């Protein structure tokens, strides 16, 4: 008997006339509503915090939303600090830059999150309703996905990953420096130190667990067996990658909390408890 041959073109015909955009009976809207709510809350807070242009530095802590501070305006934050390690006067943006220095740098970590494969899923579902949930019809008449401008720009995620890796290193540096006291001596630890350390760890894990990182480390290989070290590294990143969603959320909340903590200490609203 001859083997069956697939038709050259799919047969066409009418779909079943099933009523409603979905017959799902579970609360499918809860997950996108919560995710969208948290993302929107972060967007509102981060925008507000980024435009404050104040209370982002409290010796020896600096807000992760303002690090690295690369404008001359950061001198204002440096005044009173014995050391300038957190806010180096790089001189890239001179006195003519009058607004918040956070605006200069946030595009990189935000771009990394906006083009992140996990966040894409989240905001496509929550905000664009494309689709709002599995097997729930989307409201749009046409759909081209990520094949056209502007969504084709999602393909630059890898470049934001490179920048995010640099930012994770800088945040780690800030966390290490927070073990120095106000007189630039090692041996200090306050609650802010723990907050900045948590931020550095979560940000680094989120960055390393990224799908682009997984591809660069070893995913692009065809022969795992010919590259045993990269294969091993790929295995480690793959284990982290399974938790990319959790790391994305935790790192997002922690970075906002870190900024809030530094802001409260810098404004004198709370006092930083010191362990030693």
């Amino acid at each position, binding site marked *: 008997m001859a083997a069956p041959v*697939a*038709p*050259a*073109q*799919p*047969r*066409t*015909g*009418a*779909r*079943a*006339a*099933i*009523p409603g955009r*979905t*017959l*799902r*009976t*579970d609360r499918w809207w809860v997950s996108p509503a919560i995710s969208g709510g948290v993302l929107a809350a972060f967007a509102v807070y981060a925008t507000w915090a980024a435009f404050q242009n104040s209370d982002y530095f409290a010796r020896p802590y600096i807000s992760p939303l303002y690090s690295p501070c690369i404008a001359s305006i950061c001198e204002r934050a440096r005044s009173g600090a014995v050391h300038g390690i957190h806010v180096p006067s790089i001189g890239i943006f001179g006195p003519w830059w009058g607004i918040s220095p956070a605006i200069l740098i946030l595009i990189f970590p935000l771009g990394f999150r906006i083009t992140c*494969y996990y966040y*894409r*899923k989240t905001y*496509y*579902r929550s905000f664009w309703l*494309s*689709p709002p949930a*599995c*097997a729930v*019809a*989307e409201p*749009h008449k*046409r*759909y*081209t*996905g*990520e*094949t056209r401008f502007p*969504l*084709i720009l999602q*393909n*630059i*995620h*890898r470049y934001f990953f490179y920048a995010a890796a640099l930012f994770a290193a800088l945040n780690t540096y800030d966390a290490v420096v927070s073990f120095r006291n106000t007189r630039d001596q090692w041996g200090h630890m306050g609650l802010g130190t723990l907050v900045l350390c948590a931020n550095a760890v979560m940000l680094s894990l989120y960055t390393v667990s990224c*799908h*682009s990182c997984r*591809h660069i480390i070893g*995913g*692009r*290989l*065809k*022969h*795992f*067996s*010919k*590259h045993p070290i990269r*294969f091993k590294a790929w295995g480690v990143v793959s284990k982290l*990658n*399974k938790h990319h969603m959790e790391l994305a959320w935790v790192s997002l909340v922690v970075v906002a909390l870190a900024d809030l903590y530094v802001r409260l200490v810098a404004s004198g609203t709370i006092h930083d408890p010191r362990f030693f």
Partner: protein
Amino acid sequence: MAYDLKLRIWRGDASGGELVDYSVPVDEGEVVLDAVHHVQAMASGDLAVRWNCKAGKCGSCSAEVNGRPRLMCLARLSTFPPGEPITITPLRTFPVIRDLVTDVSFNYVKAAQVPAFTPSKDQPQAPFRMQQVDVERSQEFRKCIECFLCQNTCHVIRDHEDNKEAFAGPRSFIRYAELEMHPNDGLDRRRLVQEERGLGMCNITKCCTEVCPESIKITDNAIIPMKERVVDVKYDPVRFLSRRGRTKPG
């Protein structure tokens, strides 16, 4: 313990149809497909349903149960709210033939369009010797039972019939990924899958992964790696400038 189960099953064909109510006795431990068989046996002998193994391995009994794409043979009745009717409809994305049976030939057409395994000129000719780590990578994709739940739930074609020509779908993409990751395959399908098979239309909302009865990580292990490979060759200026993007990965 036996009890009466209320079912609402879509009955009809391409010219139209409706949800029809049934009540059948079922036993503890049974699955939705058992209940459908009870309907066939006791209430409506002409009810059309496609099934075979009743063990989640043949991929025949795909349908939508309470609006969720799943295999009827793996949908245990005890997981549904007691006392509430269970609604069973055919797969929405494909043309209906009759009742719960749809025409899934779309998927075979897309499968036939995948360029077959092509031995690399650099590699030793068949029979190939592969290391276990290389075998395991594509082994996950070989678990596919072709139930086409992923194709059915993908909103790219589920909500947009006009995209069917341009979009191969997640089932095809895991085949492309499997071949691209094969150590002895020498064909470069990266531009093809992006430019002619609609990989860029996928917005990675992961519904294909959610419904896969074989728990294949379709999005994380096949579609996203393929998107990254496409970035290598199409959207990475560093690789483009170094001309390495034109070469096959090592």
